[in-house]
C-alpha cells in the first residue's frame, strides 16, 4: 500500500512539473477546431495545412516575442456539441484565440467566447453581423461578409456596365438555406437603388439537382449570374450552363470555389468563370513561394504539395497571417505574454495589412471587426486567376445598415 501511495505521489509530482514547464514556455497558441471529416472538408484540409506551414515559418524566424507559436488542430466533425467540447478543452489549456471555420459551430461557440472573453476568429463563416465590434467585442470575422461580398459583386457588374445598371438582369442562384439566403436582402436593396432586375433561383441542398433553375434561366436570360453554392454544386451548375448554352463568362461564384472544382468542371470549360475573393489566387504569391522554398523544397511541408496549389491554401495563409500579425502587434504593444486583452489590441491595430500582397488590405478597428470587407473579382483563364477589378468595398453604408439592423437584435 505504501508503495502505491509513493508511486502516486511521484507521478503527481512529475505531472505537476510537466504542467509547470508548460506554463513557463507559454507559447502563443491558436485553437483550430475544424471540421476535417464532414461537411467542410472541401476547404478545411488546405486551410489547416496553411496554418501549420505558417506556424513553422514563424517559428523558424524566431517565433513571436521570442516564444514559439503553436496551432492546435482538432476535428469537430461540424457538430456544435463537439465544437463546444474542443473550445472548452483548449480554453482550459490556455488557448484564447479560436477559429472554427464552420457556421454551425461558430454560432454555438460564440456565446461562450463572448462570455469568457476569448477571441473568436470567424473569417468567412458564422454570423456576418459580428463585424459590428460595438456589439461583438470578442468576435473577429476578418475578411468580407457575404453581404459585403454580394454588394461588391454588384459593384463589379456596375463597372462592367459603365456605371449604369438600369435594365440589367442579374440572376442569383443559391442554396436554399441560411448560407445561400443571406445575400438576398442586400441584393434586393441594391436592385431597388440601382434599378437592375434581380431574379432568384433557389436550389435545394445538396445542389445536385439544378435542372429546373437553369432552364428557367435560359428563358429569363440574365446578363450575370451570381452563385452562392459550394463545392460540387458549382460543377453541376457548369454542366447545366453548357446544356442551356449560357456562357461561362456570366458566372460569378462566391469565394467557395477552387481548383478542384475547376478540374471537375474541365479546365477548358471553366475558362471565363469568375469568383469573388479577398485573397489573391494562383501560385505566384510571394508568401506561398516562401512556403515552397523554405518548407516544401526541403520536404518539411505539413502535408501534400498538391493541397498548396489551391486558392483555399492561399485563403488559409491569409487568415493565419492576420492572426500571427495581430499577435506580433500585441507583443509590441503590451509585451509578452500575450493575453486575450492585448491580442484584441493587436488585432485592432492592424492597418492596411495585406500579408505581402496576398490579400485585400485590411484595417481592423474597434468598430469594424471585418477589416473593411474588400474583395475583387478574379477570372479563371485556363491557368490562373486574373483579377478583373481593384480591391473594392462598394455600398458600404448599405451593408452597414444591414449589419447594424441585425446586430442590434443580439442579446435582446
Amino acid at each position, binding site marked *: 500500500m505504501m508503495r502505491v501511495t509513493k508511486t502516486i505521489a511521484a507521478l503527481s509530482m512529475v505531472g505537476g512539473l510537466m504542467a509547470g514547464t508548460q506554463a513557463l514556455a507559454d507559447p502563443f497558441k491558436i485553437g483550430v477546431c475544424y471540421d476535417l471529416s464532414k461537411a467542410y472538408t472541401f476547404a478545411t484540409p488546405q486551410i489547416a495545412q496553411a496554418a501549420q506551414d505558417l506556424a513553422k515559418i514563424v517559428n523558424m524566424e524566431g517565433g513571436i516575442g521570442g516564444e514559439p507559436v503553436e496551432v492546435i488542430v482538432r*476535428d469537430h466533425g461540424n457538430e456544435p456539441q463537439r465544437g463546444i467540447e474542443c473550445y472548452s478543452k483548449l480554453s*482550459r489549456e490556455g488557448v484564447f484565440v479560436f477559429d472554427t471555420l464552420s457556421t454551425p459551430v461558430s454560432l454555438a461557440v*460564440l456565446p461562450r467566447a463572448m462570455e469568457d472573453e476569448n477571441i473568436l476568429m470567424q473569417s468567412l463563416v458564422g454570423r456576418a453581423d459580428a463585424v459590428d465590434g460595438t456589439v461583438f467585442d470578442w468576435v473577429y470575422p476578418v475578411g468580407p461578409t457575404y453581404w459585403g461580398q454580394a454588394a461588391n459583386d454588384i459593384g463589379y457588374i456596375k463597372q462592367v456596365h459603365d456605371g449604369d445598371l438600369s435594365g440589367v438582369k442579374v440572376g442569383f442562384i443559391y442554396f436554399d438555406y441560411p448560407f445561400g439566403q443571406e445575400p438576398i436582402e442586400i441584393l434586393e436593396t441594391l436592385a431597388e437603388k440601382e434599378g437592375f432586375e434581380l431574379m432568384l433561383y433557389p436550389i435545394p441542398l445538396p445542389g445536385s439537382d439544378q435542372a429546373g433553375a437553369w432552364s428557367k434561366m435560359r428563358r429569363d436570360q440574365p446578363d450575370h449570374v451570381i452563385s452562392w453554392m459550394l463545392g460540387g454544386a458549382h460543377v453541376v451548375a457548369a454542366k447545366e450552363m453548357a446544356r442551356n448554352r449560357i456562357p461561362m463568362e456570366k458566372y460569378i461564384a462566391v469565394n467557395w470555389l477552387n481548383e478542384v472544382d475547376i478540374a471537375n468542371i474541365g479546365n477548358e470549360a471553366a475558362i471565363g468563370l469568375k469568383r469573388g475573393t479577398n485573397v489573391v489566387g494562383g501560385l505566384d504569391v510571394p508568401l506561398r513561394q516562401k512556403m515552397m522554398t523554405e518548407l516544401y523544397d526541403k520536404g518539411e511541408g505539413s502535408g501534400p504539395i498538391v493541397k498548396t496549389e489551391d486558392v483555399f491554401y492561399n485563403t488559409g495563409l491569409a487568415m493565419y497571417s492576420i492572426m500571427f500579425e495581430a499577435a506580433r502587434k500585441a507583443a509590441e504593444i503590451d509585451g509578452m505574454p500575450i493575453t486575450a486583452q492585448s491580442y484584441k489590441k493587436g488585432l485592432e491595430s492592424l492597418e492596411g495589412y495585406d500579408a505581402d500582397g496576398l490579400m485585400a488590405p485590411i484595417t481592423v478597428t474597434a468598430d469594424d471587426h471585418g477589416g473593411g470587407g474588400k474583395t475583387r473579382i478574379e477570372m479563371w483563364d485556363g491557368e490562373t486567376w486574373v483579377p478583373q477589378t481593384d480591391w473594392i468595398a462598394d455600398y458600404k453604408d448599405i451593408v452597414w445598415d444591414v449589419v447594424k439592423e441585425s446586430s442590434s437584435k443580439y442579446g435582446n
Partner: protein
Amino acid sequence: MFYRLSGVYRVNYVSDGRMFKVPADRNLAVVFLFLGLAAPFIVPSLYLNSYMLPWLIWTAAALGLNLVTGWAGQLHLGYAAVMAVGAYSAIHAARFGLPWEIALVIGGLASSVIGSLFAFAALRVKGLYLALTTLAMQFVMDWVLTHSPAISGGSHASLQAPTLELLGQEIVSDTGYYYVAFGWCVLVTIFMLNLKRTGLGRALVAVREKDYAAAILGVNSFYYKILAFATSSFIAGVSGALLVATFFFLAAPEQFSVNVSIQVLAMVIIGGLASVIGSYFGVALILLVPGLVNGVVTSASQALGMQVNVETLAHIPNAVYGALIVVILLIEPLGLGKLYGNIRDYLMVWPFDQLRK
C-alpha cells in the same frame, strides 16, 4: 455472490410490481444518483460541462424517443424536429417575458401538439412507411426553420436564449446548468422506470407487439399511439429547450437537423429498445465516443511522435467509432442495455451456476 439472489422469482404481486427486480440494481441506481449529485464537486468543470451535461440532456431526449420507438414500437425519424419545436417555442416564450418554468411547459406542450400530428400518420401506416412519413415531417420542419426568420431569428437563423431562471434563481454557473440537466434527466428516468409497471406501459407494449391483438384485448391502440407520441414529444420539447438554455445558449436549425434525428434513433437502437439504462449507454456511445476517441488518437499520435496528417487524424476516430457500433450490434443486437443485462444475469448466481456445467 455479488447479488445475494438465487435468481429473480416472482413469488407475490408486490415483488412483481417492484421497480427494481434485483436489489443490487436499486442500490447501484442510488449510488449513481448520489454520484450525479456530487459530480460538480468531483468532476473537473471541463468534463462536467462538455461531456456530462449534454450526455444527461440527450439521455432524457433519447428516453423520450425510446418511449415511442422502444415501448410503443413506432419508428420515428423526425424526433429532432419535435425537439426543435420545443426549443423554439420555449425560447420565444421566454423572450416574450414569460418565466422559464412556464416557457418550458409551453415548449413541451407545443411539441406535444406538433408531435401528435406524427401520430395521425402512425395510425395509417406502420414500419418503414411510418419511418418515411416522420422523416418527411423532419424535412418540413427544416424547411420551416430555414424559411421563416420570425421563428428562427433573422437572416443568420440563430435565436439567442435569455438567461435561464428557475424558481427565482438566475442560473449562470456551470454547476447550475449541470443540476438543471441532471434534475430533468432524473425526472424522465423515474417516469420511464415507472412506465414499465403501469397499465400505460403494458398497453404500449401490447400495441407494439400487435396492435390489432391489443385491440381485441380491449386496448385502444388509437388512443395509446397518440398518447405515446404526445408524451414522448413533451419530453423531446422540454429536452430541446433545456439543451439550448443550458448548453448551446442559442438555437440554430443545424442543431435539430435530420442527421440529429438519425443520431437520436441510433442512440436508442444501440442502447437497446425499451431499455432505460441502455439509453444512458447509447447516448454515451453516440454522443461522447467520437470526441473521446478523437482525443485518444490525437494524444496517442503525439505520444508516439508520429507526424500524422491532420486529415488522416480526423478520419481514424470516425472509422474506429463506426467499427465500434458494428461490433457492438454484432455481439448483442438488442443493444448495450441488454449487454449489461447479460453480464448481470451471468453474475447473478455466480459461482454456483458453474457447478451445473
